[in-house]
């Protein structure tokens, strides 16, 4: 069963929100879920309205079904020192690296190394055992955006290409092994707009070419139209019957200006055009043949309450 869920999406599609909702949805009674942030944005802290997360796993929420959600903001510098200490027992020498600016180097000239460390930490947390039991039942990663997701997940293949032998090579192979295995699923968050959908399609192609597995496409911020298909078809052609609208408004007791009918009809027209575009985009998503999950728009913004609502939509 999939235990490592990687959530990506174009900027602005709400991938952090979706990752959080997914973690809450997975938090069944008695389960422990780890939600990982890798981009140093403290988006999870903002979302859950808690102070900035340190490089420590701490519980930030309970799922609606009673499980626990822990959060971790992975910091590449700290991960590097931890890594050196864990695998090479380099307490003091690690500090020496920091002193000569090697850690700065990691984050500047070789930002790819940052990805190595971030994926390495995700790998470690996913397979960590405490008293012979897995520390977390599932790990959800708020990953880099679609434009960067393939190189991010594939960075260890690059590393393996650079280091032909040695401990780094082994580590890189092990991480890629997990990311390509059956326990890992990549979920792509999109809106029904041209750019995010195109990026989703591109990313699916890139990820599959790398032998990585797609879990689902999450269509976020879905708005249900109050107009039925017949009304939409009329509205698109600007042929909504003005006489009926006039009668209807009168029956509703609205006596606002003569232009109201026209304004409402033109709003319906714009809306119908947008619905049409959304449907085209939805068809392009469906053509991928992947599992699609819809999450409805939360018009008043996202808070803990709406996160729980979204988690329930995930569970449904």
């Amino acid at each position, binding site marked *: 069963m999939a235990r490592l869920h990687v959530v990506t999406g*174009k*900027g*602005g599609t709400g991938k952090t929100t979706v990752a959080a909702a997914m973690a809450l949805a997975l938090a069944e009674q008695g389960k422990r879920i780890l939600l990982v942030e890798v981009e*140093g*944005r403290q988006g999870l802290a903002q979302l859950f309205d808690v102070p900035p997360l340190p490089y420590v796993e701490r519980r930030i929420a309970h799922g609606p079904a009673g499980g626990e959600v822990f959060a971790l903001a992975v910091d590449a510098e700290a991960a590097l020192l931890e890594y*050196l200490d864990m695998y*090479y027992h380099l307490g003091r*020498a*690690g500090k*020496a*690296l920091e*002193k*000569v*600016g*090697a850690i*700065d*180097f990691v984050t*500047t*000239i*070789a*930002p*790819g190394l940052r990805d190595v460390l971030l994926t390495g930490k995700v790998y470690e947390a996913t397979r960590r055992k405490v008293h012979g039991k897995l520390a977390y039942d599932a790990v959800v990663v708020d990953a880099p*955006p679609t*434009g960067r997701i393939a*190189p*991010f997940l*594939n960075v260890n293949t*690059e590393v393996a*290409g*650079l*280091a032909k032998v*040695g401990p780094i090579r082994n580590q890189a192979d092990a991480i890629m092994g997990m990311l390509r295995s059956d326990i890992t699923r990549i979920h792509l968050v999109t809106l029904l*707009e*041209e*750019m995010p959908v*195109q990026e989703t399609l591109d990313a699916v192609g890139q990820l599959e070419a790398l032998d990585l597995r797609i879990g689902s496409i999450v269509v976020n911020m879905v708005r249900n*139209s*109050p*107009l039925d298909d017949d*009304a939409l078809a009329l509205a698109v052609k600007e042929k*909504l019957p003005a006489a*009926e*609208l006039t*009668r*209807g*408004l009168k*029956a*509703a*007791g609205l006596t*606002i*200006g003569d*232009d109201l009918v026209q*304004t*409402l009809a*033109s*709003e*319906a027209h714009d*809306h119908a*055009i947008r619905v049409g575009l959304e449907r085209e985009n939805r068809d392009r998503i469906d053509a991928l043949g992947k599992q699609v999950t819809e999450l409805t728009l939360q*018009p008043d913004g996202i808070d803990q309450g709406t996160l729980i609502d979204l988690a329930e939509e995930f569970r449904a």
Partner: protein
Amino acid sequence: MNLDLDALIDDAETRIIVTCGSGGVGKTTTAAALGLRAAERGRKVVVLTIDPARRLAQSLGLTELDNTPRAVAEVNAKNGGRLDAMMLDMKRTFDDVVLQHATPEKAEQILANPFYQALSSSFAGTQEYMAMEKLGQLHKQAERTGEWDLIVVDTPPSRSALDFLDAPERLASLLEGRFLRLLLAPARGPFKLMSAGVNMAMSVLNKVLGAQVLTDVQTFVAAFDTLFGGFRQRAEQTVALLRESHTAFLVVASPQNDALREASYFAERLRAEGMPLAGVVLNRVTNTEAPELSAERSLAAAEKLEEADKSPLTAAVLRLHADKMQQVVGDHKRAERFRRGHRAIRTVEVPALADDVHDLTGLRQIGDLLTA
């Protein structure tokens, strides 16, 4: 205060416009629309985009990724202007820098090095450096040949818009760092000159990376060393260029809390850096022509019709208007709060359109809205 973008693009002293903001707010479309408008008002414009939507790219004729500006067809040139557009190819830009500034043998060595290949194509952060590099190049070319008098730059879709500003500084500070010197040292002189701490660091690297990787890295860094000086100098020049009064930053934000927060950070940062902020474009603000019919009244009217089982069509249209009014009120409230919180910043509000922009007509329409 109102932001007058026509005054900005008509001012011959405006030589560079940089659009920035968080992802998905319409930065690229804004850059393209302003570029087109400026060209049709007589400026000689080049638009540098980073990652345009496919249809927008097509509308600008950007079908080829050849990293050089191409004339955009069907631009109205009756005022003597022109419009070129290009999409940044970061690897190609990086390669060009290497080829231009290294001897042929050294260039070959660098281009073939596995670290260079990884760095120039797939690693994060490179795009920001290369966008700055390309801006510097275009500016030089414009000064030299006079083929453009206005450069419009769209910034990379970074996790934070601030990465764009940080890129050159980070590069410069890295180049002054000890680590680079350290990696270069073995290629240059005897190890024994180094301190015990440095020796320890080297032995850690050897142990962690393996000798072969370390040698590759050292070869790469040594081969790259001569280039780095040039890189740094040019990065500093570009930053200086961005501080000049010929430059205008335009922050684009949609009326959502995240985007507005990012816009605030950015405006604050530009001020701290002494970089000229022309103003903020509040983009895709929902509007209505029937603001007098509030969401509550519209919804109540819809419910009344539904209960009486009358005209479901009117009820649906009223519900639609109620949804829209909620957005209108929310968008305007957030936009207004932003303006109140930043009284010294000029703003312009652009209404949301029903359709995506995918041709020059659409870009012209955005241009009209930007300057209405």
